[in-house]
């Protein structure tokens, strides 16, 4: 059959990511900007392409506009293919029913028809909100070698953090004996990364059964995996030992960005063996002015820097005026930092203006936490935004006099 694919990836991108506050007010979490010129979903999409998977369904639901526009026809990832490629899959109206995606399992269930078109042997289920580089083809090889019904990628986490994750208890061969969601007393440190490979027929069977169960919350971790375990299916844990970061909170998003900096960064974007692809713009090169000072930072096209930038990440089109000082911060696209303004330990979303001599945040050492300023805001000259503030429209109206 012409359309036959060995493995189809289903990328869950419908999450709201409410712990990112204003960053996800108008954007789905996978579309949140990252690392100067990327969006979070670039990492998962690039992983697919680098693993030889050329058919990816992206399941969207929450605020899909930016994400849809960004993915487009998939050309930046070489995912504009005659058959397969990337396809955005929003919830839809059927002949007899219409429904939002009610849980991760239900989202895949509603798109079984998409999977069936390619007649795959395996289905790879991914989430679009992690920063990591992984070769899924190695995991698929493991899945085949073990003759598994399902394989779940796991990563070793410190035992004290294990109770925040779904933990797999396995035997020596890696076969999963027990799965505990956020256990109070974890028996192992193998945490689920939310990356699953299923035998397609088995997945189909369990999704249909789960759909019929009115008690189910239609979630992979809570329902499908436990059901498969109790059904006696061969389920294996695939250990991954590389960089993997959940960027679900403002703090972890900041940390993951900072992991890109340094002479030998924790996460190396310059790795030519495993490139990260993104939709590139055609903006003018960035300009560093005469009095500027830029150290240990990442800067991209369209920026103009006349002030000081240290340990920071500037997205495209950011302007840093004379005397402005940016330290340990992430400044997203087209934001202007005016003369003499100081920004410390903060994330500033795109198209915001930080007025002259305004102060945003405090150094991380102060312990008062990270500061977040939303997109498209105007922070007037001389304004002081205290450390730990989450600044959005209503914050500006309440606290900042025009």
């Amino acid at each position, binding site marked *: 059959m012409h359309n036959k694919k060995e493995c189809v990836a289903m990328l869950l991108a419908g999450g709201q990511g409410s712990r990112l506050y204003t960053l996800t007010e108008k954007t789905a979490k996978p579309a949140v900007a990252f690392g100067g010129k990327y969006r979070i979903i670039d990492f998962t999409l690039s992983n697919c392409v680098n693993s030889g998977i050329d058919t990816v369904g992206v399941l969207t639901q929450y605020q899909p506009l930016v994400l849809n526009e960004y993915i487009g026809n998939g050309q930046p990832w070489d995912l504009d293919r005659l058959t397969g490629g990337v396809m955005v899959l929003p919830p839809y109206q059927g002949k007899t029913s219409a429904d939002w995606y009610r849980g991760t399992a239900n989202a895949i269930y509603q798109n079984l028809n998409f999977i069936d078109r390619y007649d795959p042997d395996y289905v790879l289920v991914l989430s679009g909100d992690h920063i990591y580089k992984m070769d899924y083809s190695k995991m698929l090889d493991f899945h085949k070698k073990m003759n598994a019904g399902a394989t779940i990628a796991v990563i070793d986490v410190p035992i004290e953090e294990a109770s925040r994750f779904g933990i797999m208890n396995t035997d020596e061969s890696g076969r999963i004996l027990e799965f505990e969601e956020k256990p109070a007393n974890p028996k192992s440190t193998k945490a689920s990364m939310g990356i699953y490979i299923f035998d397609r027929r088995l997945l189909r069977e369990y999704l249909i059964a789960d759909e019929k169960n009115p008690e189910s919350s239609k979630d992979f971790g809570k329902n499908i995996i436990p059901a498969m375990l109790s059904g006696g299916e061969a389920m294996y844990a695939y250990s991954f030992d590389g960089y993997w970061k959940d960027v679900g909170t403002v703090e972890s998003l900041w940390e993951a960005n900072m992991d890109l900096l340094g002479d030998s960064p924790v996460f190396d974007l310059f790795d030519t063996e495993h490139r990260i692809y993104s939709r590139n713009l055609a903006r003018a*090169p960035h300009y560093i002015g005469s009095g*500027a000072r830029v150290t240990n930072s990442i800067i991209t096209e369209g920026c103009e820097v006349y002030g000081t930038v240290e340990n920071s990440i500037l997205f495209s089109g950011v302007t840093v005026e004379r005397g402005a000082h940016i330290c340990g911060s992430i400044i997203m696209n087209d934001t202007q930092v005016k003369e003499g303004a100081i920004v410390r330990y903060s994330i500033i979303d795109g198209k915001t203006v930080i007025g002259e001599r305004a102060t945003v945040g405090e150094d991380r050492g102060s312990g008062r936490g990270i500061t977040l300023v939303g997109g498209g805001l105007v922070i007037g000259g001389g304004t002081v935004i205290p450390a730990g503030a989450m600044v959005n429209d209503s914050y500006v109206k309440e606290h900042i006099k025009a």
Partner: protein
Amino acid sequence: MLVQGIIFSNLHDKNISELTRRRTMASVPYACRYRLIDFALSNMVNSGITAINVITHYNYQSLLGHIGSGKDWDLARRSGGIKILSPYMTAFSNDHNQLYNTRLEALKSVNYSLSRFTGDYVVLSDCDVICNIDLNDMISDHIESGADITLAVKRVLLTREVSARSVIIDSDDTGRITDVNAYPTNVTGYRDIDLNILVVGREYLQSVVLDAIAHGYTSFSRDILARGAARRRYRIYRYDGYFATIGSLADYYYHSMELLSSGENRDKLFGIRNRPIYTKVQNSVPAKYSDTARVSNSLVADGCVIEGTVENSILFRGVKVGKGTTVKNSILFQGTFTGENVFLNCVISDKNAIIRDGRTLSGHESLPFFIEKGRMV
């Protein structure tokens, strides 16, 4: 109204033989991430001209690689889009195969394609016109004035040196061209120079080319413009934005550095609202500055890694500046690698040049030191 475009990709290759040994003038790299043809293409696309023909001559592999399907300029179209008119040898013609040298000969060589044009107007542009011009305004001017040919000019202060490589256009108060002086060596003062961008009615262009074939004409400025100035309505259109054209390697260096000396030049070229300059986008990582980086008054492209000092310089994509290295007043093309403790001043390095640890190289503004493509120093 349909307007079609023609771009000449090779006409001035001899001007900077260092950079055009293995590429066309059109594909000479410029300003960190562009190739010269990007300006002509973007000007056309931004003015709604989406059927563009590029006439090539020799060495055009790099140009084909750059243009690809034309997608990056939104020119991958089902109808129109970009079309390469490459030279060809006809069968059975023995020793009669000759490639063109001049603009008019280039047009004669594509006479067949030209005869298939269906648009109302044609915009012709050289590839080394570094400017951001609103061609729509120029086309409107052409239509309103009822001109046969409208030529873009810019009023500049000429020195003998500049005049010797310029075509000087004289016109009367109404803007009608009265005389054309090609490359005079004795003209100074404020005069209008030809920008090598012109608008012409499609039918008139076709008739001019057929006439040139019949009469054996070879020069557009001499045989068409100068000869016809008295009889025809040839007019000027004055452009007053940023303009540069490249006459020599020193010229290339001068105009590149001009982008650093004034933010106004950059704004007039890259900062005009709704008229961006497009180029082939590549997947590159952002630029990375280390703790030891000291950068001032420089333009830097994505993918650079800077650990040393960079002053008054232009770094193309993926340039590496090593620890203890100083790069001053230099232009380093894509993939140039400098090791540690290197000192460069007034250097132009072509793509993928390697400068090993401890080397010192210096040219002068009037004679930049040139390192050829892939060369290791």
